[in-house]
């Protein structure tokens, strides 16, 4: 994508692809803001993972879930309450059982309308779509640890991992085999590090690295990233490499007396050279990552391990 061409509208489209027994993905088609949408079909119920942005995308996803699930009970969850991922939830209200982690309820209330303002500034042509978003309360809220969903022949574990990419990160592990990682893992592009103080500074990049280690220990055979092509456990390692690289540079630059902005610029230049195949659309995120780690680092050089408590 060049800087001049407007990105296509964030429309979920195309047929669900079977990626594992009972597990489907509607691919993002590399369209910004469109997530990879998951549909897991059991004998008794169907689970949708992420909705796309807005009522129409949500309705499109629900229609596929009902068709694949032969109109059985539908559950819907989101990897995090972010416009692309969870802002189509209203289409599911009263038609599916909406399942949130408590942190997602809190994030929806705290940041939902702010996200609409921010995204409307970034993509003015999407303002009508964003303004029509309706926030709905979930039917089921889980507060601690995991929620296990038995779909009949397929089991999904919803697990809260935030704060990392967001305060309310959640992954969904299906049959101990397929991991829906949300934006904790992207493929073929720079990770999104939403560090925009003061509006949003919940990203906890140090903890994110720890979370990636935990996701690796789950040993999933298939990793469905929030955005980008389906992959395997190697995708987790790639994100981890990037984050640890940025962390190392940020603490080094800070120790050398660089300002936050200078560190962000230096890190962006270095990372673009190091990962030339990752698209340009998220180059800006590198600088955010650099500033996030810069803010989280101490004056000394971080030599490894988590600095979560200092974030």
């Amino acid at each position, binding site marked *: 994508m060049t800087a001049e061409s407007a990105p296509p509208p964030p429309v979920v489209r195309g047929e669900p692809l079977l990626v594992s027994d009972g597990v489907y993905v509607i691919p993002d088609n590399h369209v910004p803001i469109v997530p990879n949408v998951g549909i897991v079909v059991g004998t*008794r119920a169907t689970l949708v993972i992420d909705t796309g942005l807005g009522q129409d995308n949500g309705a499109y996803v629900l229609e596929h879930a009902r068709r694949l699930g032969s109109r059985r009970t539908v559950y819907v969850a989101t990897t995090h309450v972010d416009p692309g991922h969870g802002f189509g939830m209203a289409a599911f209200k009263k038609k599916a059982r909406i399942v949130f982690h408590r942190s997602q309820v809190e994030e929806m209330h705290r940041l939902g309308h702010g996200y609409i303002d921010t995204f409307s500034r970034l993509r003015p042509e999407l303002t009508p779509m964003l303004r029509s978003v309706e926030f709905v*309360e979930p039917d*089921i*809220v889980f507060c601690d*640890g*995991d929620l*296990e969903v*038995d779909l009949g022949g397929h089991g999904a574990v919803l697990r809260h991992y935030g704060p990392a990419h967001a305060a309310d990160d959640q992954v969904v592990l299906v049959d101990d085999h397929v991991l829906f990682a949300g934006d904790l893992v992207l493929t073929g592009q720079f990770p999104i590090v939403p560090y925009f103080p003061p509006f949003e500074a919940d990203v906890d990049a140090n903890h994110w690295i720890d979370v990636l280690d935990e996701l690796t220990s789950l040993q999933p055979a298939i990793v469905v990233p929030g955005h980008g092509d389906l992959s395997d456990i190697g995708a987790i390692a790639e994100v981890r490499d990037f984050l640890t690289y940025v962390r190392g540079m940020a603490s080094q630059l800070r120790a050398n007396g660089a300002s936050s902005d200078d560190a962000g610029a230096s890190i962006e230049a270095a990372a673009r050279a190091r990962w030339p195949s990752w698209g340009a659309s998220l180059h800006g995120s590198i600088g955010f990552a650099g500033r996030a780690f810069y803010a989280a680092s101490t004056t000394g050089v971080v030599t490894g391990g988590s600095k979560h408590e200092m974030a």
Partner: protein
Amino acid sequence: MSTTQFDTGTPNLSPPPVVQGDPVQLADGIFVIPDRRVDLVPNIGIVVGSQAALVIDSGLGPRNGTYVMEQAKQLAGDRQLYLTITHFHPEHGFGAQAFKGTATIVYNRAQRDELGRKGAGYIELFKGLIADIGPTLDEVKFVDPDLTYDGQAEIDLGGHRAVLRSVGPAHSAGDQTIFIDDRVLFAGDLLETRMFAIFPYFPPLDTDVNGSRWLGVLDELIASKPEIVVPGHGEVSDTTLICDAREYLEYVRGEAARLRASGASVEEAIATIDAAARRRWTTWDHPEWIAFAARVFYQTGS
């Protein structure tokens, strides 16, 4: 679990464990099918919101479960149904199979795991303890929940909010309380009205009952100030019921500790506590559970 004379040598004088009668409305949309003080019948809750209804406890066996589900459907119409169970004991949860595929069954993890560990053992235990129960138990099939949570979960029924909280081990390892709208408490066998607390201490099958933690849970329930308290068995009440239950447990704990410190054997302590508690709580049913409580508190030494 419920109450029994533990005597299969004589005919069981209690009516059969059949859930009967119409739901009684306690508050707007909140119903109970009362236990009528029948052994092995629990108080069953049905909470009807604008979008969904929640059933709390199933009764023993699929016939009771089907009866409860029919009652719930009459109240709920075409709303979605949820079923949860206060704890895994047979008369509370062994009718869940009637709901499978119709209702969304929600358990806390500790209860699910406890059912897996002990469910079959409790069927054999009850057959050995209770006359005429075999045919009912032979119909039981265990089913897995659809949703399993840790710690706490909340269900929005539309106008009513249910908070499910895992609070065990106390009466059982997987005890769960259900609060409706922060004012109506379904307590399962953490509380009974005019009955001695049930201490299901059956080594080696089950030794998870924990009297000290049970007291702590009752303190938390008192602090939460429910307006209406639905016990596992016996009449619906209010916070005074929690205080009454706490007073009894505290009494047994104190006496067991005192007698143990004075050098009494466990059997001597049980005999003393049993006699004294029967004199003190003369209107309470099922005094056979006093000895179990005394043994548990004596053994834990606190």
